[in-house]
């Protein structure tokens, strides 16, 4: 019960601040925390990256294995995205089967990668109907200070842009070669705090939020995926202004994801 009271006091405080356009950590409503994408974090993966947004940390490891295409898509490789919210990342997470929260993160990230056609899946096909690459994008949230969806996609992009197809190991070709990446979608998440809509919510802001909206945009200025989450509502006007803000933040975030890319 004391936890609930403390949470309620914090929520009231966050909403009070938001009324005058202020935030608990001193940011403005449109300030994104510092973002870092560090590719090559895990040597055992075929591609990897550690992304930090403020103190939120997500590790992504990409592994490619030789497998079979799905019967309904004989000319395409397979892409699988999975996110794990491990208990070490937050006092609110417990061990057990995947929580709907984790499923939502992986599906929203997967949707952006797929809709933006980040990877041309037909290029992952080796022999139609017989043999193809299966690309596993595994996301590990290791420190949850809010906005894990944006962090997860940035980590996935960092990992994919630097991934190597292990063709030699699987006897497909004589040498390994870099994975081709076509488009870079980035997600930008907003939450409603009263009448104020803030970008890149912290953990406490997510707890206080009255609705969350994630918008994925690509480098051509398209919206490629969206997801509204949490309890709350947005008007069509809210949504169009959020999309404008997401397009603006998207450009900067994309440059960071590309970062030290060749």
């Amino acid at each position, binding site marked *: *019960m004391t936890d*609930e009271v403390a949470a309620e006091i914090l929520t009231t405080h966050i909403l009070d601040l938001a009324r005058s356009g202020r935030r608990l950590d001193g940011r403005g409503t449109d300030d994104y925390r510092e973002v870092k994408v560090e590719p090559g974090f895990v040597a055992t993966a075929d591609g990897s990256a550690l992304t930090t947004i403020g103190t939120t940390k997500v590790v992504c490891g990409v592994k490619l294995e030789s497998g079979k*295409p799905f019967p*309904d*898509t*004989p*000319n*395409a490789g397979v892409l699988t995205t999975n996110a794990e919210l491990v208990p070490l990342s937050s006092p609110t997470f417990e061990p057990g089967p995947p929580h*709907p*929260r984790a*499923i*939502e993160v*992986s*599906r929203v990230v997967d*949707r952006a990668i*797929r*809709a933006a056609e980040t990877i041309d*899946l*037909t290029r992952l096909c080796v022999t139609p109907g017989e043999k193809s690459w299966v690309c596993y994008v595994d996301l590990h949230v290791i420190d949850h200070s809010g906005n894990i969806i944006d962090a997860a996609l940035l980590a996935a992009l960092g990992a994919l842009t630097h991934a190597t197809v292990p063709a030699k190991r699987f006897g497909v070709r004589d040498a390994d070669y870099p994975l081709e990446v076509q488009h870079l979608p980035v997600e930008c998440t907003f939450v409603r705090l009263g009448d104020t809509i803030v970008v890149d919510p912290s953990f406490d802001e997510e707890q206080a939020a009255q*609705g969350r*909206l994630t918008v994925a945009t*690509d480098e051509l*200025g*398209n*919206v*490629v*995926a*969206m*997801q*509204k*989450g*949490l*309890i*709350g*509502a*947005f*008007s*069509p006007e*809210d*949504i*169009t202004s959020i*999309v*404008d803000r997401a*397009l603006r933040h998207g450009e900067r975030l994309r440059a960071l994801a590309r970062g030290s890319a060749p």
Partner: protein
Amino acid sequence: MGSIGAKEVPVLLSPEGRRIDGRRLDELRALKITAGALHEADGSAYVEWGANKVMAAVYGPREVHPRHLQQNNKAIVQCRYNMAAFSVDERKRPGLDRRSQEISKVISEAFESVIFAEEYPRTSIDVYIEVLQANAGTRCAGIVAASVALADAGIPMVDLLPAVAVGKVAGEIALDLKKEEDNFGEADLPMALVPQSGRLVLLQMEGHMTAPELARALELGVRGCRSIYETMKQALRERYATGTGAEPQGAA
């Protein structure tokens, strides 16, 4: 989207601007709603929408299972969206896959945004959606059915939740996609509207849309929702305007 490995892309839009089933871009499929379709449930509804057949039932407010989910200051809303194995062309493995779990989550959140949950502390309001026959737009059909079922169960809400998907077909923004349009279309944007406030409590999107296209899609979707809203209210009126026979369940 979905075009990899597909044999043939059908003509989705005729030169006259007619869609694969003859509809115009801003036209809904035929929608039929029956409130109170089940006997045992506290509230229920059956929806036939195009070739979709969806049943929804509401139980509660009742004790929370599992117990640790109980909240001391309000009811929790637990929605389960499930597709029957026989509801799609190729048999679906029974049970909740990840897609169904995600949809269940966003639908629960949409309803929790409109239900006066604080009136029933320490209880659960359980909403079950069963898709019996699927033809694109099943989550929206599920929301429409579930919200009529919630009203039928007498659960106090801000408003009913009409829902519809808007998409992009042959480069044009189109209302209420059917299966072929969804499979071969360029975008899909399901939404649920609170008619009273004009705000959206469910919104998802996949595909490619520019910002102006998205604004147009929202406008078209909101208009579609308002029309569906009338059908939902009519279904409830029909259920409770009999004046004959026994008092319907949950009518208090």
